[in-house]
């Protein structure tokens, strides 16, 4: 039997430390540069800080999404769980549009018209 303590530990915010995975600094730097039109030069150390921050962010978002999954008594984390987590957490407000936007063109328009915007 799994010890219940392990998972409740995760939920209460104790970082069950993830292994030594770091996100690639070059990739992070690239994303940073594209984040705006006139991004300043980026120090070599800034991506390192980002790498850790991203890890924490993903952990928190995952944790919150998982809480939604458990509420629905499921064992598979779905996209909707992520959306619910975003809606329920203030600091995730910036993600609201991202999670509600369907990745593919929606087919709810009757008659099968393409949703191509001109």
């Amino acid at each position, binding site marked *: 039997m799994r010890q219940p303590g392990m998972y409740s530990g995760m939920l209460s915010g104790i970082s069950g430390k993830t292994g030594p995975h770091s996100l690639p600094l070059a990739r992070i730097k690239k994303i940073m540069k594209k984040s705006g039109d006139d991004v300043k030069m980026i120090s070599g150390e800034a991506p390192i800080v980002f790498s850790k921050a991203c890890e924490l962010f993903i952990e928190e978002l995952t944790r919150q999404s998982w809480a939604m999954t458990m509420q629905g008594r499921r064992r598979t*984390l779905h996209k909707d769980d992520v959306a619910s987590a975003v809606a329920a957490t203030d600091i995730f407000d910036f993600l609201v549009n991202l999670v509600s936007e369907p990745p593919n063109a929606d087919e709810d328009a009757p008659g099968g018209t393409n949703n191509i915007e001109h």
Partner: protein
Amino acid sequence: MDPMDIVGKSKEDASLPKATMTKIIKEMLPPDVRVARDAQDLLIECCVEFINLVSSESNEVCNREEKRTIAPEHVLKALEVLGFGEYIEEVYAAYEQHKHETMQDSLKGGKWSNGAEMTEEALLAEQQRMFAEARARMNGGAAVPKQTDVDSNVES
């Protein structure tokens, strides 16, 4: 899926490596839990968006301080402003840890920086020895006067 996604050359395409992200995500969850693929992709997109958000804010902070390069302090300030203040401590600790590890690496690699005095002494001794050998060659192979303790052994 757009073929451009695979090539990764389009400007929109910088994303985070799926394998690493998946590992981080899975480690947060109990082992028997599955993550739907669309949920995985969405989590990765959210992370990219997070970087965008914090980068923009860091850029602002940097501007306000009239600096030309975005430094870690600017990022930390941005995190606080955006409501991610509770990350700061751990992020800063990881940053310090990384600096420490990087320093260790350069110490290991550089023989000069560690125990510089010894190195100088060794170099000096080496120089003396080389002079002595050169002198001996000039003297036509006579007994090489090296360190006195060695000589005393030979002479007695």
